[in-house]
Structure formats: structure tokens, C-alpha cells
């Protein structure tokens, strides 16, 4: 059953149309990758789904409720968490605080100004657990703005997965990581998203084919193909879009 449905979604900035009518169904528990050349509108699509941008037309349904007009915080409360391509963390707060803030809402703290965080044992333990998962335990009290780039990417990932949302959207999670760090991150992603739905934008085809159940190819604001990895690999229009002409068989 589809957890997320895009129905003829369009987005244009002034006259230039960035997303030209995308319709896509994401099944519950599915690992879905979105690939496509630079400027295809992948990040814009992410921004539309997560509420950062308003759609110019069409509708987005998440767990049977329409979210195209909802604010990001309303969408996130429904159980949708995302990470950003450009690191977007709380620079002056330390790493532990970053993760803990991501846990507040899902743990039901809402806007409380009476709960003393020092006493919330269960919350702090959960936060430390997430830190262990992303391998930043020793940097817990380190101001996050001063972390190395790859560590900031790990924190970005941590913030997205901390709230335990049902639908997790990762925008190039391993960009800029070394090969070994990327391998560890992919193992983590697979472990965390067990039983959950994942949408991931990624350029590294090995990772895409390794993780994804289904792949959508986005070119110039249109989805030209959505299929299993094998079919996408052999799909001629995909190769044409990517390589400019039909390649001889791989």
C-alpha cells in the first residue's frame, strides 16, 4: 500500500518549470532511490515533499492526508524526517544537543519549559545510542560547527534518523565521505531503515544498486522511469539521458 503518493506535482520558479508533472507512488517499507543528472530537480522534489517549497500544482499525500500545503514542522510531526544535501545543523550547539533536539518532539516533550533535561534519563540514553550508531560518541561535547566535514555529514544523518520517523528521506547522505566512511554509513542506513520506508538521492551507483528496492530516474523535472535496479540498468532511455547516446551493452 503506498505510504507516499505524488500526483502530477509541478513546481516553477517564475517562468522556468523545475518539476514538470511528477507522479510517483512509494510503497510502505520500500527502499526507493532517486537518481538523475545534476539540475534534474532532485533536491527540489525533496523540498516539495518535506514542505520547504510550496507546489505550483498537483498534490502530495502522506499516510492518506494531503501535505502539499502543510508547513515543514507539521509534515515532520506526521512521521517524515529528512536530511539535507548541504549540511544544515545547529552549529553553536554541541553534537549531543543536536541529536537530543531531534528527539524532543517524537518523545512527546513538545514545547515543554518544565521538563529538566538533566533528569530525562531515557531521552539522554536514546540520544547517546544514536551517537553510537553514527560513531560520534567521543565528540558529544564538541561544538558541531567545528566538526570535520564527514563528521558533520554523519551528524546530518543522525538528526534525520533520531526521531524514528516511518519515512526517512536522505539527500546524498554519503557525499564527501571517504570510501570506508561511506561503507559504514550505508551499513548504518540499511540497519536503521529496517521496517521503515526510505527515499534516497544518491549519485554513487554501487550504493544505489546495493540498497534500493526500486529506482526512479528524474531528468529535467520528469520521472522517465521507475523500476527495479536491473530493469533500470538496461533501460535505453535512462542510458540515453545519462550518457547522451545508446551505449553498447554493458
Amino acid at each position: 500500500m503506498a505510504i507516499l503518493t505524488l500526483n502530477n506535482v509541478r513546481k516553477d520558479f517564475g517562468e522556468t518549470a523545475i518539476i514538470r508533472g511528477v507522479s510517483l507512488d512509494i510503497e510502505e517499507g520500500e527502499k526507493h532511490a532517486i537518481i538523475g543528472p545534476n539540475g534534474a530537480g532532485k533536491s527540489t522534489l525533496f523540498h516539495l515533499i518535506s514542505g520547504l517549497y510550496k507546489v505550483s500544482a498537483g498534490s502530495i499525500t502522506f499516510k492518506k492526508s494531503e501535505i502539499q500545503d502543510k508547513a515543514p514542522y507539521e509534515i515532520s510531526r506526521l512521521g517524515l524526517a529528512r536530511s539535507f544535501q548541504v549540511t544544515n545543523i545547529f552549529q553553536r550547539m554541541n553534537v549531543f544537543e543536536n541529536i537530543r533536539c531531534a528527539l524532543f518532539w517524537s518523545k512527546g516533550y513538545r514545547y515543554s519549559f518544565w521538563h529538566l533535561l538533566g533528569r530525562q534519563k531515557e531521552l539522554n540514553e536514546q540520544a547517546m545510542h544514536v551517537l553510537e550508531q553514527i560513531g560520534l560518541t567521543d565528540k558529544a561535547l564538541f561544538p558541531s560547527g567545528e566538526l570535520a566535514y564527514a563528521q558533520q555529514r554523519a551528524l546530518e544523518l543522525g538528526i534525520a534518523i533520531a526521531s524514528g520517523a516511518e519515512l526517512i528521506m536522505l539527500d546524498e547522505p554519503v557525499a564527501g565521505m571517504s570510501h570506508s566512511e561511506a561503507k559504514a554509513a550505508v551499513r548504518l542506513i540499511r540497519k536503521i531503515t529496517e521496517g521503515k520506508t526510505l527515499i534516497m538521492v544518491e549519485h554513487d551507483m554501487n550504493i544505489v544498486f546495493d540498497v534500493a528496492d526500486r529506482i526512479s530516474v528524474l531528468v529535467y523535472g520528469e520521472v522517465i522511469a521507475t523500476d527495479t535496479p536491473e530493469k533500470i540498468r538496461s533501460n535505453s532511455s535512462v542510458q540515453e539521458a545519462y550518457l547522451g547516446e545508446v551505449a553498447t551493452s554493458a
Partner: protein
Amino acid sequence: MSQLKKLSVWIGYLVVMLVLPQFFDSILSISIFNQMAIAIVFALSYNMLLGQGGMLSFGHAVYFGFGGFLAVHTLIMIEFETVYFSILFIPLIGGVFGLLAAIFIGSFSTHKAGTVFAMISLGMGELIAASSLIFVGFFGGEAGISGDRTYGPPFFGIEFLRDVEIYYVAVFWVFIATIFMYLFTQTPAGRMANAVRDNPERAEFIGYSARRVRFISFCAAGLFAGIAGGLFALNYEFITEENLNAATSGRVLLMAYIGGLGYFIGPIVGAVILTLMNSLLSNYSDLWMLYLGIMFLLTVLFLPRGFAGFIMMHQVAWVKGSIKQLALPYLLTGIPAFLLMLSAVALVEMSHVEAGALQFMGFALDPALLTDWMMVGIVGIGSLIAVRKSLPRLRDAWESANTIPNEDGN
């Protein structure tokens, strides 16, 4: 940091406040301590907005003033016994009305932070200050309104006739307010205020409306500003539109900034320093505002993280125990720097005095005599050279005292 150490800091803070009147019991010192108490609560409440929440407000005196005005009106009501309770709760009344004012204004001003918020707060501040001169019924024009704190029920026999009794009431409220403002930073709302300060966009993606988070901090700051206003009303038994206008908003901004925005105790340090400067410096020279302006500019230029920041920079050295190394270099640079400052002040005062000689630190400096000018000039240049020579030595000492032997090398 261990619980015990944290607790000892709070107890130390309370003890210092309680013990001060024993050392200095003249009416003026008590009045300075009262001013400090009011300034501490007000500056801390301002830092909830700027330091913690990243909201630069030019109209924070509105909530201070509203709290104060309602507090004085309550005093008047107690006097005519339309309502009757101990004046100990007056600061709370101030707090409640500060909160109500913040709820009303916060509802439309916290949509955005940054310049738009600053400008709305400026506009609202000027609007309310100007209208307070028009609605004389409530605000009492520019002579303000006054009440009398001695009509409430006595508290264990204390009639609150003398300022020192009010000082202890102020200490009670300052301690309570400081604790609650500190605890606020340890709550989800407090932490999210920091998050929204650093990155309002990302805060929206972890389930929080940035506007609502700012609104809650804004109301809390209004509450504590109102309490400070209530304390003002209790101490002076009077309030006027001056305590509501842009100048007061500017002063609290100075206190928080000079003290150090990035640290919880910053505003406390700033409040103490500025109150002392305002009350003591003006006794010694009518040019004191010129010196205050210069000192302020130097702080902004050379101590961007405020005095608390300067103190905290010594934290590493303090922990490492190498603070003793710094003592000598500081003296070597400090004394000539102090002399340089004194000679500059002497030159300024000499050129300002209209007739006769200037009594300066025990010397009679006569502007008519070239020799006096020369003498001050020589002292000035001498100390300048001494400062320049000793600076490199201070820098090296500082380096050595503060480098942490790095285990993991980064």
C-alpha cells in the same frame, strides 16, 4: 561538572548578595545594590531573547515598564485597600503584566527574527513610549505615577520603611528569577530556542515551528522583565515613561553585550559593571558619559565576547593551574596601561576645566602652566612605551598558559 560544584556556585551567588549590606551599609551603597539587583534580572531576561534566542530587540523596556506601571498601580490599590496583600508579591504582579504585554506584542512580532524583528521591536518601543506621554491617566505624564510600599500588611513586623529591607526582598526575587531563567535553558523550550537561533530552518524539520519557539522565549523574557519592573516599582515607589523608552532598551542591550551574550553569567557581570559606572563615575567628573562611551567602544572592539568572555578565556589556564604564570605579565602590562588611561583622562579634564587648577588624584594640575601639560604628557608617553614593550611578553605567557597538551592531535 559535578552536582556539588554547581550547587556551590549558586550558594556562593546567594551568600554574596546576602552579605554585601554588612560590608557597605550606607544608604547610597544599598541604593546601588538595589539598582544592581533590578539590572541583573532585567539584563538576564534580555539575554533570554538575544543570547539564547538570537532575537535582537530594541524595545525590551516596554515589558519592564508595563510590569513597573502595573506594580505601582497595585501599590496605589493596596494603599486605598481596593486590594490587600503583602508587597512581597508586587514583583510577581509586574511579571504577570510583563508577560501579558509580551503575549500581545509577541503574537505578531516573532514571525521573523533578524532585522524585521528588530525593527518591529523598535517601532513598538517608540510607539508605546510616545503614547505613554499622551495617556496621562494611566502613565501619569512625564512626572510618572507614585505609590507607597508601607501600606501593605507588615511581613513579620517589617514595614519596609528602609531601603535595606527592600534590598532583601530584591535579593529573594533576583535569586528566584536567576534560578528559573537558568532552568529555562535546561528545558526543551530553552534548548530549542538555541536551535532556532542557530538554524531556524532545520528546527522546522524536527517538528518545531520556529515562530512558536521564539514566541515562548519572548513571553518568558517578558515575564522576567516585568519582574524587574516590579522590583523597580518596589524600590523607588515611582515609575515614569522614561523606564519604558528607547534609552532604557538601549541600556539593557549595552549591559548584556558588555557582560557577554554567550554566557549565562554575562548579563550579571554587565549589569554590575554598568550600574557601578553609572553611579560612581558620575561623582568624579561631569565628563563621565564621554568615558563611558569610550570604554564601551573599546569593549566592543577588543572584547567581542564581553567581560564574561574575557574571564572564561582563562578557564583553560585555571583548569590547568597555569593561571599563576599569567599574573606577572598581566601586572607588567596592566599598570602602565592604567597609567596611560589616567594620563589621557588628565589631559581631557585639564582641557575641560574652566578656571583654576584641576584636582586630579591628589595633584593640582593647572591648565595655564605648560609644565603641567608636559608632565602629564611624559607620563602618558612613558606608559605607552611600557605597554608596547610588555605586550609581546604577555602574548607568549598567554600562549604557553593556554595550549592544551593535545592527546588526539586535532
